[in-house]
C-alpha cells in the first residue's frame, strides 16, 4: 500500500492542471470547486450561495484486473468517475455562465490536465498511466435548476494493487 491513493492523485492532478475556465465572455474566470464525491452540500447552495460556476466531484472507482491466463493479476484498471456539473447562471436575466457551454470548456481543459499527468514519474511508486476512457452527459431540470452533468471516466492503470 502506498501513501498516495489514486483518488488523491487524480484529484490533485486535475485540480492543479485544469487551468482557468472562463465564463461566457471568455474573459472572466469561472469559479471552480473540486471536491470528493458524497459531500453534504447541495446544488443551490454551491452554485448560488457559494457562487461556484463549475463543480467537479471525484468518486470511487470501478476496478477490474488484467492478468495472464490462470495467473495472478498483473495490472489493475481503475475507472474513476470525475463528474462535472454546471448550471445556467444567473437564474434570471442574461446568462453569464451557460451550463452547456461550460461543459465543453471544462472537458477541453480536463483532457489537457489529464494528459499532463498521464504517466507517473520514472521509478515512482505506484507507477501508473492515466487516460480518459469515455464521457457521458446528461441534462435535467431538478428543483427549478437546469443542471448539466458530464461524467468523465478516467482510467488509472497500475501494477500496484
Amino acid at each position, binding site marked *: 500500500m502506498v501513501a498516495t491513493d489514486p483518488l488523491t492523485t487524480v484529484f490533485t492532478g486535475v485540480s492543479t492542471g485544469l487551468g482557468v475556465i472562463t465564463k461566457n465572455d471568455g474573459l472572466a474566470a469561472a469559479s471552480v470547486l473540486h*471536491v470528493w464525491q458524497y*459531500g*453534504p452540500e*447541495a*446544488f443551490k*447552495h454551491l452554485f448560488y450561495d457559494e457562487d461556484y460556476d463549475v463543480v467537479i*466531484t471525484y468518486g470511487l472507482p470501478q476496478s477490474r484486473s488484467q492478468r495472464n491466463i490462470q495467473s495472478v493479476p498483473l495490472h489493475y484498471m481503475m475507472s474513476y468517475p470525475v*463528474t462535472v456539473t454546471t448550471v445556467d447562471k444567473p437564474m434570471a436575466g442574461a446568462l453569464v455562465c451557460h451550463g452547456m457551454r461550460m461543459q465543453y470548456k471544462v472537458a477541453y481543459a480536463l483532457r489537457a490536465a489529464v494528459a499532463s499527468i498521464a504517466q507517473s514519474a520514472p521509478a515512482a511508486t505506484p507507477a501508473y498511466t492515466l487516460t480518459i476512457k469515455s464521457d457521458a452527459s446528461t441534462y435535467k431540470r431538478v*428543483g427549478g435548476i437546469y443542471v448539466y452533468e458530464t461524467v468523465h471516466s478516467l482510467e488509472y492503470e497500475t501494477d500496484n494493487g
Partner: protein
Amino acid sequence: MSFATPLILSVGEIVYIQTRILGARNAVTNQPAVTYGAFDPDDFDEDDFFVSIKTKIIMNHIQTSEQDLHGGRLSVERQQGFLPGTVSVNHMDRVEYHDILYEVESTETPEYHLGQVGFQKINLVRMSE
C-alpha cells in the same frame, strides 16, 4: 434578528428536528465539516435563518390523504439542498402531525447524485392515536 415565528407556527407540527450546519472545508477532500444541533423554535435568530426556511419547506411538502392517516403512515417530501443550509431528519426524530405522533420509518433519496441530495422522501409510521 427575530425571524418569522409565524412561518413555523402556521405549519407548526415538527417536534424534533436536527439541524445540520456546514463548516470549514477539509484540506484533503474539500468537503465541508458538518455539525449537528437541535432545532429550537423558541430561539429563532439570524443564525437559524436557513433552518427556518428549510423547516417551512419540509412542512409545506407533507403529502397525505385520509388513507394514509388511517393506515398509520405519512410521507413527507422535502427539498434538501435547493435552499441554503440543510435540515436533517434522522431515524430517531419524531414528527407530530394533526396531534398524532409519527416516527421516521425510512427515507428515500430518489435523485441522489453527486453527494448532493435533490429530493428526499421521508416515510413516517404512526406511533400514537
